[in-house]
């Protein structure tokens, strides 16, 4: 059995906001600030339990006899994280080698609506249960109007080294239309405070494609944002997310999204302006000066393991993904009962894992190396008994077929892309996507072209088996 990959990132969710943006479908509640202290307790409990569980796994990985000798908890195969949702928080052995993430991310919601005292408490949690010596990046999300010098000082003192600020627009009318609860002036002020507090690494989020915003107006917003000097920016199109107020308005015919052409123009404008000012588009919606890419997100997109703690938080480790139920009361209740929060667990088949790595990797400028992903797939398959979510590799492609595919047949030491059914599908699909001008080949890597970035979802769907 292969040892699972180490947890690279830890995410802590803070599901509280001071209102609800129109487009928002995140799990965030307003009017529940009274529960924050209990929530922080629960959050700490979950992190503690998870970190024990994962330490235990790391220690025992590859050695079943060691597990038996320890006699601790119930013996369970290393890969069986799938049922951790039912385990008791006390079941695991006490930590000896704590989790040592490289990135920490506190998102929401709006972590900065916490009081100064609560924020300090939140920031103190990780160090008690994690080994932070490998930590390279610690991000906290903030919204203008909730961020002040005092809070920034708390964050700075705790070791936070990156702020992600939800500016969304620098136009008061647009902000109001989006249902934001701050002004453009407050956003500018927040940026100034971040810089003044000594944060070199920070990000500014913008939402584009808002209907009714003129092209020139949007370009001004982007220019103004760049002028605020963030080394990182995220630019998203306004979308209709299931469950959001906006989605309801659209369904009722009271609102509409921008048409295809408008969206295209809007996002292209942003890309041009940002590129011109030295911000590189390293992912579909993310731009950064070299070295300022968000490590946490990049790690997630590369398919590395991360632990998400908190109500509605998502995790990926040990070939599984699980998401805590988006239900604050259930989360608090579970903590009081000393059990893990209710969660949905999905065991990833080797093929699903490979597909995820490909399609999310492809969203980044660095692209993907299909042959490497397939090799990992083969390796994981080889470690699984046939029949456990594993398919016998199909070796059906002849030498001539391979030759005909030319460049798309990636030679590997042990074979080529086409040795499995998935590999064959990828090879033919990549060949077609290349002809259609959506994907480029860079050595063994595949990278989206500009048009491919516009159609990233379509490309992903094509590559799914």
């Amino acid at each position, binding site marked *: 059995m292969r040892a699972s990959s180490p947890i690279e*990132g830890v*995410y802590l*969710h803070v599901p509280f906001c001071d209102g609800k943006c129109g487009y928002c479908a995140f799990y965030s509640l307003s009017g529940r600030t009274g529960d924050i202290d209990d929530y922080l307790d629960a959050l700490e409990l979950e992190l503690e339990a998870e970190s024990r569980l994962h330490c235990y796994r790391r220690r025992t990985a590859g050695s079943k006899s060691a597990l038996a000798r320890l006699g601790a908890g119930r013996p369970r195969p290393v890969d069986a994280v799938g049922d951790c949702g039912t385990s008791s928080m006390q079941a695991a052995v006490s930590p000896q080698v704590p989790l040592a993430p490289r990135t920490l*991310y506190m*998102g929401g919601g709006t972590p900065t609506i916490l009081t100064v005292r609560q924020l300090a408490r939140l920031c103190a949690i990780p160090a008690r249960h994690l080994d932070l010596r490998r930590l390279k990046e610690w991000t906290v999300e903030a919204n203008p109007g909730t961020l002040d010098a005092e809070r920034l000082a708390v964050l700075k003192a705790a070791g936070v080294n990156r702020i992600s600020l939800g500016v969304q627009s620098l136009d008061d009318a647009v902000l109001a239309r989006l249902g934001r609860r701050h002004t453009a002036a407050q956003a500018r002020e927040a940026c100034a405070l971040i810089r003044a507090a000594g944060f070199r690494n920070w990000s500014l989020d913008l939402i584009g494609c808002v209907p009714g915003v003129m092209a020139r107006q949007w370009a001004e917003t982007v220019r103004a944002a760049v002028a605020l000097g963030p080394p990182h920016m*995220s630019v*998203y*199109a306004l*979308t*209709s*997310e299931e469950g959001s107020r906006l989605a309801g308005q659209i369904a009722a015919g009271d609102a509409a*999204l921008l048409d*295809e*052409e408008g*969206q*295209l123009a809007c*996002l292209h404008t942003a890309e041009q302006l940002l590129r011109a000012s030295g911000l590189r588009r390293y992912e*579909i*919606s993310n731009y950064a000066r070299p070295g300022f890419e968000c490590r*946490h*997100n990049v*790690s*997630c*997109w590369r398919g590395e393991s*991360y632990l*998400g703690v908190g109500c509605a*938080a*998502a995790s*990926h480790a040990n070939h599984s*993904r699980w*998401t805590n139920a988006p239900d604050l009361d259930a989360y608090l209740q579970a903590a009081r009962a000393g059990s893990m929060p209710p969660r949905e667990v*999905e065991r990833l088949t080797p093929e*699903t894992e490979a*597909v*995820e790595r490909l*399609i*999310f990797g492809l*969203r980044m400028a660095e692209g993907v190396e299909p042959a490497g992903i397939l090799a990992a797939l083969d390796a994981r398959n080889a470690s699984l008994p046939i029949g456990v979510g594993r398919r016998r590799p199909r070796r059906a492609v002849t030498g001539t077929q391979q030759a005909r595919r030319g460049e798309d047949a990636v030679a590997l030491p042990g074979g080529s892309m086409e040795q499995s059914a998935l590999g064959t599908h990828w090879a033919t699909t990549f060949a077609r996507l290349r002809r*259609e001008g*959506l994907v480029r080949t860079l050595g063994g890597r595949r990278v989206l072209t500009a*048009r491919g970035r*516009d*159609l*990233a*979802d*379509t490309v*992903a*769907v094509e590559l*799914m088996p």
Partner: protein
Amino acid sequence: MRTLPNIRNFCIIAHIDHGKSTLADRLLMLTHTIEERNFQNQVLDSMDLERERGITIKSHPVTMKYVARDGVEYELNLLDTPGHVDFTYEVSRSMVACEGALLVVDAGQGVEAQTVANAYLAVENNLEIVPVINKIDLPSANPEVVARQIEEILSIPAADAPRISAKSGLGVADLLETIVQRLPPPKTRDDGFVRALVFDSVYDAFRGVVVYVRVMDGELKAGDRVDLMNSGLSSDVKEVGRFHPGMEPVPVLKTGQVGYLIGTLKSAGDIKSGDTITLTQHPAPEALPGMREIHPMVFSGVYPVNTSDYEKLKAGMDRLRLNDSAFTYQPESSVALGFGFRCGFLGLLHLEIVQERLRREFDLDVISTYPSVVYRVFLKDGTMEEIDNPIRLQDPSRIDHLEEPMIRAYIICQNENIGDVMKLVMDRRGVMDKTETLDGQRVMLTCTMPLNEILIDFHDYLKSVSRGYASMDYEHTGYVKSDLVKMDIMLNGEVVDAFSCIIHKDKAVYRGRQMCEALKDVIPPHMFAIPIQAAINKTVIARETIRAMRKDVTAKCYGGDISRKRKLLERQKEGKKRMKEIGSVRVPQEAFISVLKTTG
């Protein structure tokens, strides 16, 4: 000729919903063929689909014992018949085994199109017709007017027509007497030979092929060896029996009786209705006058959505065919759709029912191609060929002319809709032959139309222009020369054979435009622009373009979002998989239906 005075063989014919099944049930109860406590509405309509759609597809004979008021016991053989236009052949094959028919007319609705068509069929089959006015319990019942309609339109005396309520049972006991008194008993030649008429056959999973027979002359019993005179097959008779209404074996099936025979035959498909059964040892010198052979009238390619379901589809069709000898199929392949079957149906409803059964009973997703009738192609070299698939049409340079099948349609509608109905008929290249007044409110139009014009959605339009009141039935009247062309639809420059159709020249441009527009609406944008063209003989007559997709909606995708985002994409993928890949274009299943939709 000898008469068999104690037997009556009859059928009930009616427009849909006029109460045929209800009356049949009532007769079964009154004769204690079934007991009231076992009564399940409409005993004779046994397929689920039939019950749901309220139509009978198959006829199930049943034998009743009736002691008449004169004290004599009669044997009444009732053959239930379907009412729908598509199944005219079923009606007519039951009729061959009967001497009489009850023509049931709803006292509230009056004579309808199927009443007319079925009555004409009964006359053609030399049946004694007794009109029965049903539903006299309804407040809207107007038996006087209905009786007059029957006399005027059908020329059948109806002044003393029994007036009943099949639902309440009122008048049904008297109707039994009427059956005995007015319907003629069967006659036999009594020449020492055995002749039994095959009028249907079904496949029973346990017992094999069950052949429905009406013994015309002589007797049949288990142990006999018999020949089927037209098909040349022979079989040992393992069992003979009667329907009470379930199958019950009897030692002998006697002259004049209706029942079943189980032999050693393997497939219902081997057996043709209308064949004559005789004894192998002592064969009759000549067969009974056969019945009109059933020819499928409408053809369509049926393909599995999933190409890997081909074998499953074949197995499903084999099974359906066992019980539905009117349904034909043979393997064919399409460039667009891969491997499938060319299927023959009696009409559009039959096509729909077969598709629905494939879906329900065999869990198959199928696509069917543009339906076609059988065209006669006269070539310049003097030969003629019949084609049921536009793909097979020869190069125009070799064709002298084409002929298409025509129908005579009876349409009954409200006076105020005459104009709209006539316009609809004329739009469909129809010609009015006759207009007759039924009563103060309704008229019957008799018109001649090409069959291919009613194939797709004529009924829907008829119902819509008449706000649901019009009814229609038709009969086939043969072929006429017609100015027909083959129209192809091209997707991204490639002809999609599944969409090809043969169409009247004058309608091609209009129809081509409609089809292109319909496809434009249902085919989602691709990564490239897709021209959709309609062409005759490679000349483009209509064109639409689906613009290339340029942008996906780029939603935020942070780390924790990966499984949600992946599931969203997986759902999109599922949707795409359900589409049919034709060349480089993914065509959703609705496309195959949407091209059938016209706008009048």
